[in-house]
Each structure stands twice: as structure tokens, then as C-alpha cells.
């Protein structure tokens, strides 16, 4: 079920990523102020935007989980946060590289996006330890959802606060005084956002398909070989029972 459309999505992602790469390297004009370095922007900012959207979406999924009590939503929320954390790390690393290239330091405190990203990362990095410390899967799902909702609301608020506290001295490519992005840059930027979004969605789908398959095989083993032949599940941060086994409310 969950594997449906995976091939089409994989192809689309591949095309979009190649297109982004080609456009960035061969077509997008060099920035007047920053030159070639500015091209990291096409990678860093879309990854950042997708990460943020993903965190908020995970919060919405978590809300659905609490409303419906369905473990299916817990799985989605978990996987989205899991992958968003990885994107978050990519965003932090590319941001650090950009900072080093533009301003000579690996870390700059007056770049609000980067700083917010670190704070958001620190918060979401506690999601897995929190899940891991709760044994009962039902409670784990509920508590994780509460966390995801609170954290989802935290993301925009945190951005506001960090933005307010930062003096904007560095050149910002997006929406600065020198009048936004030129058309060509904007086009490449949008293509890149689409590509990163597709990549994110693809990985989420892979992950969900893999987890569901694992559960189904586990259930099959239990049915075929008996409950004793299957090692009991240890503590796990990931959701551990198949959604179809989940209680109906």
C-alpha cells in the first residue's frame, strides 16, 4: 500500500534534483555582491524551508493522532520529524559552510536563520530520547504527539524571537533592501525548493513503507512460528506496533 507511486516519485525527484544541480552550476547568474559563493543559497535555504514546513506538518499529524487515537498518524509524525532532523543537520552544515565562505567563520551569531536552526535542532533532538524513555507504545505515541504539537508551535515563535534579537548586518539574498531576487535566481530557487520537497517526501515514503513492511513481516512470523519464536520488542524510539493492530476508539 505504502509503496504505491514510489517509482514515479523517485523518478520525479531524480529529475528535479538533476535539474536543480545543472541550473545552479551552469545557468544561475553569479550574485553581484557575493559571487559564486552565493550559490550555496540554492541548497541551504530550500533545505531550511522544507525542514521548517516538515516540523509544522509533523505537529499537525500529531494533532490528528491525538484526535483519532490512530497509530498511523503517530508513525507519520515520527517519520516526518526523523527525516526533518536529518534535513536540519544538512541545513546546519551547509549554513556553516556558507558562513565560512562568506564571512570567514564557521559560525556567526548574527545570522538569524542559522541560529534559529540550531535552537530548533536542539529541541527536536530530544524527541527520540523522549520516546525512548517511554515503554508503553500507546503512551509513547500520545506523549510524542504532545511534544510534536508544542514543538511545532515553537518553531515559528522561535524564529520571530531570534530574528528580533539579531542585528541584520550581513547581506541577505532574500528580500533585502536591494529589491528581492532577480527573476533567474528566483526560478532556480523555486526549482530547488520543489526538488528538496520531493526528496523529503520520497524519503518519508520509503521510511514508512519500510517500517510497515517490517511490522507485517513480524506479524507474519508471530502468526506462523508462534509468539515465542519472535524475540520480544525491546525498547524503541520508533513506533513499534503495526497501525492495523491499533485500537479503534
Amino acid at each position: 500500500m505504502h509503496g504505491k507511486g514510489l517509482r514515479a516519485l523517485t523518478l520525479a525527484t531524480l529529475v528535479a534534483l538533476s535539474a536543480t544541480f545543472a541550473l545552479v552550476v551552469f545557468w544561475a547568474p553569479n550574485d553581484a555582491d557575493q559571487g559564486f559563493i552565493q550559490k550555496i543559497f540554492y541548497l541551504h535555504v530550500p533545505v531550511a524551508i522544507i525542514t521548517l514546513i516538515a516540523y509544522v506538518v509533523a505537529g499537525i499529524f500529531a494533532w490528528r493522532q491525538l484526535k483519532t487515537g490512530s497509530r498511523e498518524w503517530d508513525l507519520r509524525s515520527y517519520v516526518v520529524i526523523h527525516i526533518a532532523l536529518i534535513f536540519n543537520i544538512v541545513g546546519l552544515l551547509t549554513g556553516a559552510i556558507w558562513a565560512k565562505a562568506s564571512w570567514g567563520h564557521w559560525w556567526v551569531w548574527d545570522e538569524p536563520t542559522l541560529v534559529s536552526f540550531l535552537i530548533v535542532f536542539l529541541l527536536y533532538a530530544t524527541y527520540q530520547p523522549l520516546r525512548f524513555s517511554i515503554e508503553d507504545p500507546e503512551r509513547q505515541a500520545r506523549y510524542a504527539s504532545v511534544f510534536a504539537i508544542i514543538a511545532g508551535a515553537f518553531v515559528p515563535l522561535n524564529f520571530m524571537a531570534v530574528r528580533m534579537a539579531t542585528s541584520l548586518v550581513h547581506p541577505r539574498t532574500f528580500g533585502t533592501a536591494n529589491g528581492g531576487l532577480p527573476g533567474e535566481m528566483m526560478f532556480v530557487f523555486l526549482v530547488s525548493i520543489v526538488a528538496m520537497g520531493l526528496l523529503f517526501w520520497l524519503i518519508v515514503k520509503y521510511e514508512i513503507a519500510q517500517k510497515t513492511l517490517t511490522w507485517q513481516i513480524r506479524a507474519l512470523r508471530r502468526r506462523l512460528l508462534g509468539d515465542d519464536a519472535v524475540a520480544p520488542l525491546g525498547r524503541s524510539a520508533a513506533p513499534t506496533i503495526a497501525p492495523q493492530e491499533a485500537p479503534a476508539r
Partner: protein
Amino acid sequence: MNPLAVLAAAPAVPYDKAGRYVAAAFIVLFAIVLIYVAIMATKLQRLERDLGDINRELDRRQREQAESADGVGPAVGAATAAAAQENAS
């Protein structure tokens, strides 16, 4: 056309410091995607192994069933034949 010629002709890739940084940023992305693919591959291998276990177990049971069916089969056939005769008479 030789693809390397395209790269060489590309005016946008300066082989200076800036080029290295941009390359590094993209390498970070691709490295992480590659690591993800590698992790996924090991997970798939485990799934394959588990599925193989289940398949073998099913095979064994089918064989067992077939064997026991071979032993019982004629007897059942005889019984039904006898029942049919009884009905007829």
C-alpha cells in the same frame, strides 16, 4: 559531445576557494543521502532475510502436509469409496 567537454566549457565553475565551498555544500547533501541509502539497504537485507525464513518455514510445512497426505490419502479414499458403496446398497 564529450560530457567532460561540457564541464570544461562551463563558465560558472571557478576552481578557486569559492568553488570548493559550493562543492562542499553539495557534497554534504549527497553524502547524507548516500548514507541514508546505505542504511535503507541494510534494512532491506534484514527484511529479505526475514521473508526468506518465513518462506522456508512455509515450504517445510507444505512438505510435511504433503507427506502426511500421502500416508492418509488412500485410507480416506477407501473410506469414501466404502461410504459410497453403502449408500448405493
